[in-house]
């Protein structure tokens, strides 16, 4: 036993020595490489999605072939640490030169750590109208363009044709309304009960983007005013959106929050337990891989009082304002937001391009994705402000209480209004 331990320890130590040797050799090789092309500029590029990373490895490789004088280092940081690390690195001036950005943009723009891109855009004559306007505008803060758009997310309805057929209910028709949906769902519910089965007529994920932020806008309310100074949870339309969602649950057309908080709506839909699903475009690939994908129809959301517009999210590429080589960083950003990079991302189905000319490359095998592009035309950006990290978690929590019926929509909206408004007021 003891002898065995000794052997193992020796082996381990030998192993670690060997490892040291290796890395030194590698370092030597790297240096040699650098010596050959001493003028090579090194820039780093940070992202958080390991699913997308392989595609970005390829894109960056192509970029390096076209720009032999630039060496790009890809830094993958998981989402759970991405922002903490970015903030810490900003403080010590070691943050990546180029990095992914999302709705946290105002916070970073306010802090002055993002390089304004307008001059570069003008100099290189990049036409910003080539991008979906909502995504482009989402990264334009106080009239300064801080990011180049990457992709976009829209919300639409996916429905299981098989279930509609099974119960002999008519499928949703383009131009349908919230009332039409309730009507169809009511018919389904009656037939499902009659058959003693357990499907749900309507499903959704109770997160802001795929559900209530859409309905708030569609009911004539708003989350934040256009100048991002006023919270809109005291608006009649906002309260109505919550009331309408709770009534879907009360009428048994949608499962209650105890079901949806443990099992995602999309997962129920994938196990063929639901007929109508409100879902973000970012999960299209999952639906497309389902065994019944041929049976899935897509349609824009039903119209409420003020329309059927969708929240549009999407990422952007930002340049660090303290980057040592901003021109090289901009070159990379321009390439990443360009035709070739978008084509590669679309073909790999990792993102729906915000670059309109590259949208044709985004195709699903079974699901009709054209609805995504249609929806994008009427959408509105995800509400955000520099204190979004402060008020959004609170809004989520209180909304969950409304859906769990611990609070009425009126009480909940009152609390959300207070919390959000006080966060907005504390923004300098």
């Amino acid at each position: 036993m003891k002898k065995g331990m000794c052997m193992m320890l020796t082996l381990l130590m030998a192993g670690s020595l060997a490892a040291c040797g290796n890395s030194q050799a590698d370092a030597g090789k790297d240096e040699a490489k650098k010596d050959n092309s001493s003028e090579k500029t090194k820039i780093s590029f940070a992202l958080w999605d390991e699913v997308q990373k392989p595609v970005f490895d390829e894109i960056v490789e192509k970029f390096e072939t076209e720009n032999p004088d630039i060496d790009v280092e890809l830094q993958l940081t998981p989402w759970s640490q991405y922002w903490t690390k970015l903030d810490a690195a900003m403080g010590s001036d070691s943050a990546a030169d180029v990095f992914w950005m999302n709705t946290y943009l105002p916070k970073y723009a306010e802090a002055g750590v993002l390089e304004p891109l307008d001059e570069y855009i003008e100099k290189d004559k990049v036409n910003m109208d080539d991008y979906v306007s909502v995504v482009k505008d989402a990264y334009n803060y106080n009239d300064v363009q801080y990011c180049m758009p990457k992709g976009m997310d829209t919300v639409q309805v996916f429905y299981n044709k098989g279930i509609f057929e099974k119960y002999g209910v008519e499928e949703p028709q383009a131009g349908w309304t919230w009332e039409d949906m309730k009507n169809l769902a009511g018919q389904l519910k009656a037939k499902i009960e009659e058959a003693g089965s357990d499907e749900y007529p309507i499903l959704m994920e109770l997160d802001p983007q795929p559900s209530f932020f859409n309905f708030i806008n569609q009911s004539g309310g708003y989350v934040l005013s256009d100048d991002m100074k006023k919270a809109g949870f005291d608006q009649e339309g906002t309260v109505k959106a919550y009331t309408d969602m709770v009534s879907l649950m009360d009428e048994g057309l949608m499962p209650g929050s105890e079901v949806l908080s443990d099992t995602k709506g999309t997962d129920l839909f994938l196990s063929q337990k639901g007929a109508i699903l409100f879902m973000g475009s970012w999960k299209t690939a999952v639906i497309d891989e389902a065994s019944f994908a041929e049976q899935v129809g897509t349609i824009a959301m039903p119209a409420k009082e003020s329309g059927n517009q969708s929240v549009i999210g999407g990422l952007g590429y930002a340049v660090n304002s303290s980057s040592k080589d901003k021109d090289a960083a901009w070159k990379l950003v321009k390439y990443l937001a360009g035709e070739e990079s978008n084509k590669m991302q679309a073909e790999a189905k990792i993102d729906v391009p915000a670059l309109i000319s590259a949208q044709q490359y985004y195709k699903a095998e079974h699901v009709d994705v054209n609805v995504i592009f249609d929806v994008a035309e009427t959408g509105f950006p995800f509400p955000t402000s520099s204190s979004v990290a402060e008020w959004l978690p609170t809004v989520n929590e209180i909304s969950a209480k409304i859906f769990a019926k611990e609070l009425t929509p009126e009480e909940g909206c009152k609390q959300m209004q207070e919390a959000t408004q006080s966060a907005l007021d504390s923004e300098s």
Partner: protein
Amino acid sequence: MKRQKKGSLRRREIITGYLMIAPLMAGVIVFFIGAFFQNVYYSFTNKSSFGIPKFVGMENYVKLFQDDAFYQAFINTILYVVICVPLVVILAVLLAVLLNSKVKGIGAFRVCIFLPAVTLPAAIGLLWKWLMNYKFGIFNEILGKFGVEPVAWLSDSRIVLFSISIVFIWASVAYQVIVLLAGLQGIPVCYREAAEIDGANGVQRFFKITLPLLSPSIFFVCVTTVINVFQIFDFIYLMIPQGSSGTEASRSLVTYFFEQSFVKFHKGYGAAISLMLFLLILAITAVQMICQKKLVFYDD
């Protein structure tokens, strides 16, 4: 001459000893002690995402004592302690005594009881999350068989704290059983045999001999369990989705610290919360140390 030689040898030994522990000490000083004092400093600043933190004096603490969410997290944490500690200790003693008996195949039982201690908390959390799933979980399935209405284990704000406690108890009993089992096996058999000859029955032997002689181990189990429960975080984080209706009712001090520091980026405020937790654990452990003198029996 001889003496001097001995002295220098001893000094050399001391130096070698310190050299041996130096790498570990360096780690402890930098990552624990240093970090602790840095945290104390941050708790008096408005440290947030970036920029140089500004000294704000007692502001964080004043805010803390007016913060309803902090009180809620505080009460929840106390509730976790009140529920979990007695149950972990009682269950661990009972199981240890059972596992100490001479039954065929006792090794297999010991392995089964110890398994949770070598399982990753993440795996435990995910597993129990499924067991407690409202619609597909086995718990509600079993309850249904007895005609009981399904329970929303992970989203009903009146239940979540108990659900998390169940998982915590299940996961932490395992390690404590091993500690107590070692303690039990350290009790000389002669005491029990003597009592048996004197005519003491099983219950008497347990309360008059086993329990007093086991009390040092039980004390150790109490102290470590109290500290672990005060720092409860992982199962809450893994099993209750953030922003769901169970969030507030299950939130512990560490969860609240995490949210403030790493979700909302109020790092100075988070530092103040963690310092309060430190003081709380320090106080309770001190009380335990004092009680130890009266309640724990050392068989020297």
